[in-house]
């Protein structure tokens, strides 16, 4: 896994970070893009112009308060119509937490999220296994690698019908699984999935909170030294170079 910025030729890759009313983690996502060596570009939900970005991150939070369903109202934002079009054309899109919920509501990814089986908000450092290291957002990891990133949600229980779950497993589209403890009752311990093409990835845990030593989860090098989330952002830069 690469833990630092890629070479300087990637520095002009523009990674959009889309903000909705109630988004919390857009600044952390932008910071993660910058630390990986890309250029973060702020996008606004009401604006259908994606400002020539090469990829988009839908960060976490509580868009529109999640009053109707998590992600339900955001899905119809003008910017989302542009994101759906771009994703169908192959542009890398990453949905984190609330962003994952928006991607399922927009039908870019299958299944949905309901309230955690134990009903409590959970916030912890979560170990995940990388089940697919070939997507646009995971190619700098290795298959089977364990990574630790923060997890914080109340509506994080991934559900889908058995046929859809079998299809996801059969096509290698389960990208991350919870290890050690399933924190929300997600079917088959699924923490993140991808679309058929591998350019759209969604997950409940928060890689953007584990990108800089001193501010992340505890790691092998000591307290708060974990930077396992940085690989998402170096992966997308690598995939843009190859494209």
């Amino acid at each position, binding site marked *: 896994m690469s833990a630092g910025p890629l070479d300087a030729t990637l520095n002009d890759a523009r990674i959009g970070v889309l903000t909705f009313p109630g988004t919390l983690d857009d600044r952390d996502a932008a910071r993660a893009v910058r630390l990986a060596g890309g250029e973060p570009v702020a996008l606004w939900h009401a604006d259908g112009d994606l400002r020539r970005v090469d990829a988009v991150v839908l960060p976490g939070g509580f868009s529109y308060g999640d009053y*109707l369903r998590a992600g339900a*109202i955001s899905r*119809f934002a003008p910017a989302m119509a542009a994101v759906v079009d771009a994703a169908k054309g192959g542009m890398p899109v990453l949905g984190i937490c609330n962003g994952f919920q928006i991607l399922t509501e927009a039908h870019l990814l299958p*299944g*949905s999220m309901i*309230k955690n089986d134990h*009903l409590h908000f959970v916030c912890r450092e979560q170990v995940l296994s990388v089940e697919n290291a070939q997507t646009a957002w995971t190619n700098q990891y290795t298959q089977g690698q364990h990574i630790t990133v923060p997890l914080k949600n109340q509506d994080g229980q991934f559900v889908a*019908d058995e046929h859809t779950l079998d299809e996801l497993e059969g096509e290698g589209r389960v990208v991350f699984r919870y290890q050690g403890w399933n924190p929300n*009752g997600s079917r088959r311990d699924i923490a993140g999935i991808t679309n058929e093409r591998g350019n759209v990835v969604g997950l409940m845990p928060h890689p953007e909170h584990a990108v800089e030593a001193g501010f992340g989860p505890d790691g092998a090098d000591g307290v708060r030294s974990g930077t396992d989330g940085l690989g998402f952002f170096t992966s997308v830069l690598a995939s843009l170079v190859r494209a």
Partner: protein
Amino acid sequence: MGRVVVEVMPKPEILDPQGKAVVGALPRLGFTQFTGVRQGKRFELEVEGDVTPEVLDAARRAAETLLSNPIIEDVVAVFDATEVHA
């Protein structure tokens, strides 16, 4: 003024954690006869005039697209609930 009610319930095969919490609380208040609770949503949509077939049709489409997520929920009822004053 007309009113359309839309009722949405979690699908039978989807666990309803909220209903489970409610059914756990009922016996503590002495309500021991209820063995299960499922919690859904009721929307009241208001319109200026009468609830015409077109209004009901629009309500059904709104129910399927925005008010419910067909992966986890069923629209169980869409009906005219306009209050009639004598």
